[in-house]
């Protein structure tokens, strides 16, 4: 039987096991929406902006490990989703985006709502397809999912002209895909693996530096075995949080620009860096020429381009984390004995010394302004038993979330690392909530970032996605203000947000629940009330506006040279400044 392109599209989604599509309609995709409307297998979540649809697909993908799917119209629909594609590309998020296109006969004529979708998305997708013939549609969709989810995952775009969705073809879904130019390497080179295992045995000051790749390859169990067997401490990147239990004694926490003191010191002074699925981003390496001056480097990554892109590597291993870690474990199981532990005792003593010298700190006065760290810490302590999924926006609050919200398991952490997209957090949380209706999904947001995709509150209410948003409301683009305090002599150029909207009323206006924490003593009660609500909630928490995030390695600095607190001149200035206190802001807000 012949099916229309639109029907073929939906049959393909079903075959790929897609349950949810985040979408917003328009002229050239109406046929597809019409068919979606008439079936029940695939749920359509109508978003209020295509960027929201894209980030929801990302959140869905990060939480489930499967490809997230979004569907947008031509022209402005496509340009709106670009930010999400670029975000997914930087963070290797598997997703398939379908875009509508003007009819094939009109392509190139500056037709109504025409855009060069292929050209626009080329630099921010792993691959993209323009389907010119309905007979190619099914095979193309199969390839799109295959490319998005294999090797180093990433976003794939399928551009479907209107006439292709209307035309008919015989439907057959291919069982397998073979693309001669695309053969990701999953098995690591045996000889290299052996070399690496030997280096691990010999090292006196080894450190595991693990990233998003461990999560993509579901290798947490193997990583845990390796770390415990060899007693090697673990540093996680921002994207690797959850790959290793945050409360485990071997976890040193996050490393990098706002990483912990011990994580960065251990990296800097180690003699063997074992990088697993991490890409030596500049937020981690600091000044590349001074990065890990004493270490040999082992780098396991599925993407050869990640290796030796920023940092020289002594033992490169191209392969999937899970496979390579298994092989490491197999070799090491036979050789590890008490000796290594003994050999490394001085190293552990040193790390513990670092840990004790400069743990993460902040000072919360009993009746003082609410400190943002306190909010994250209490949120963590109050919700940990419910194994929540946590998303963040971008800024200081993101870094405090990374420092204080300790994740026990992978696929619970949704954050935008590579692109650093403000506005990511809320829709990403909604995407995860759509995948797991019964789970607790938190969004730790900034007062600046949340306003970048606030419109999705309508989606959350209508589609019943009861995400709990906790806004760390400092009245500033806090991260920008921090840099201005440290590097621009306190000139707050465009970082003061002025009077932000009343988020409680805003939530109310959308039909969600709005709550505000007025003083630190109320924090627990309000958070508990929020968690007990079955609707989307905004918890507005006015926090101390001038809190800075430490440790901090200034951009291009060295990893062992961290700022640990406000420099003296800054402290003095803040003490004397008759600036708005959170209470004042609060009065402004509620006035």
């Amino acid at each position, binding site marked *: 039987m012949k099916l229309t392109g639109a029907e073929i599209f939906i049959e393909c989604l079903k075959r790929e096991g897609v349950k949810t599509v985040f979408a917003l309609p328009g002229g050239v995709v109406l046929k597809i929406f019409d068919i979606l409307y008439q079936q029940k297998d695939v749920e359509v979540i109508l978003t209020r902006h295509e960027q929201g649809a894209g980030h929801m697909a990302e959140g869905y993908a990060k939480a489930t490990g499967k490809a997230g799917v979004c569907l947008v119209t031509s022209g402005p629909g496509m340009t709106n989703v670009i930010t999400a594609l670029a975000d997914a590309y930087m963070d290797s998020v598997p997703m398939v985006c379908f875009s509508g296109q003007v009819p094939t006969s009109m392509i190139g004529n500056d037709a109504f709502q025409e855009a060069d979708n*292929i*050209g626009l998305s*080329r*630099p921010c997708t*792993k*691959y993209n397809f*323009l389907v010119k013939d309905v007979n190619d549609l099914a095979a193309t969709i199969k390839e799109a999912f295959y*490319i998005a989810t294999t090797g180093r995952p990433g976003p794939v775009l399928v551009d479907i002209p209107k006439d292709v969705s209307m035309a008919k073809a015989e439907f057959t879904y291919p069982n397998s895909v073979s*693309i*001669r*130019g*695309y053969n990701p*390497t999953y098995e690591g*080179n045996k000889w*290299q693996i052996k070399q690496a295992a030997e280096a691990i045995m010999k090292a006196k000051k080894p450190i595991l530096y693990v990233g998003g790749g461990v999560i993509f390859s579901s290798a947490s169990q193997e990583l845990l075995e390796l770390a415990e067997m060899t007693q090697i401490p673990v540093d996680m990147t921002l994207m690797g949080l959850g790959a290793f239990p945050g409360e485990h004694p071997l976890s040193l926490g996050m490393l990098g620009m706002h990483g912990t003191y011990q994580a960065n010191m251990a990296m800097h002074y180690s003699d063997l860096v074992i990088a697993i699925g991490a890409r030596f981003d500049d937020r981690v390496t600091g000044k590349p*020429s001074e990065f890990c001056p004493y270490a040999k480097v082992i780098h396991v990554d599925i*993407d*050869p*381009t990640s*290796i*030796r*892109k920023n940092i*020289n*590597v*002594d033992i*490169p291993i*191209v392969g999937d984390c899970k496979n390579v870690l298994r092989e490491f474990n197999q070799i090491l199981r036979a050789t590890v004995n008490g000796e290594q532990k003994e050999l490394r005792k001085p190293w552990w003593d040193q790390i513990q010394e670092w840990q004790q010298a400069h743990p993460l700190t902040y000072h919360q006065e009993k009746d003082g302004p609410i400190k943002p760290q306190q909010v994250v810490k209490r949120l963590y302590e109050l919700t940990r038993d419910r194994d929540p999924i946590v998303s963040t926006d971008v800024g200081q609050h993101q870094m405090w979330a990374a420092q204080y919200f300790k994740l026990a398991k992978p696929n619970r952490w949704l954050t935008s690392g590579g692109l650093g997209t403000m506005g990511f957090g809320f829709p990403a949380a909604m995407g995860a909530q759509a995948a797991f209706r019964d789970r607790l999904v938190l969004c730790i947001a900034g007062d600046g970032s949340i306003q970048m995709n606030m419109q999705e509150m309508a989606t959350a209410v209508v589609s019943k996605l009861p995400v709990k948003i906790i806004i760390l409301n400092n009245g500033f683009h806090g991260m920008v203000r921090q840099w201005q305090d440290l590097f621009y002599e306190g000139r707050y150029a465009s970082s003061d947000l002025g009077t932000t909207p009343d988020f409680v009323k805003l939530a109310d206006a959308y039909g969600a629940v709005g709550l505000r924490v007025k003083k630190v003593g109320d924090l627990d009660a309000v958070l508990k009330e929020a968690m007990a609500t079955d609707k989307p909630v905004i918890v507005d928490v006015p926090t101390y506006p001038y809190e800075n995030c430490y440790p901090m390695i200034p951009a291009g600095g060295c990893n062992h040279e961290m700022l640990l607190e406000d420099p003296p001149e800054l402290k003095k200035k803040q003490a004397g400044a008759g600036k708005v206190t959170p209470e004042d802001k609060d009065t402004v807000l509620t006035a």
Partner: protein
Amino acid sequence: MEHIISVTVENKFGVLSRVAGLFSGRGFNIESLSVAPTLDSSMSQMTIVTSGDERIIEQIVKQLNKLIDVIKVVDLNETEFVSRETAIIKVHTKDADRAEALRIVDIFRANVIDSTPSTYTIEVSGDPKKIEAIINLLQPLGIKDLVRTGRVAVAREPARPAAVQTKKVARD
């Protein structure tokens, strides 16, 4: 250092822009690029002349390999190869210069492929040095037009794909 990279790609819509976009997006340098179908018409052969230090060339090779439409990448500098470029040069030739032009054509084993009362159009093929040399000699006569194909190259022995795994290099 200059490298000649031979890239076998799918012969389909948009591949050239993927390769060109890779070079411009990542700030790699392209000196010349030529592309044409191979014996198997489902594939095209690109010859890219580029330059960079060892680390950059390694990234270029890896990034090219990563493109889904790229089937094979050979860094010809890793083997022995032969390369050629063709130039078509239209020179202004007044009466007295015509004989001189022909002499130069003869020395370089070039061909005159078109002639009008006031011009010769000369085709010359060879390595870049040879082409530079003939251009220098023809310049005084007055070159009206010059087009060059960019280089094409082939390995002398069957070529192995460029190493995908990184080579071990001393840390700097």
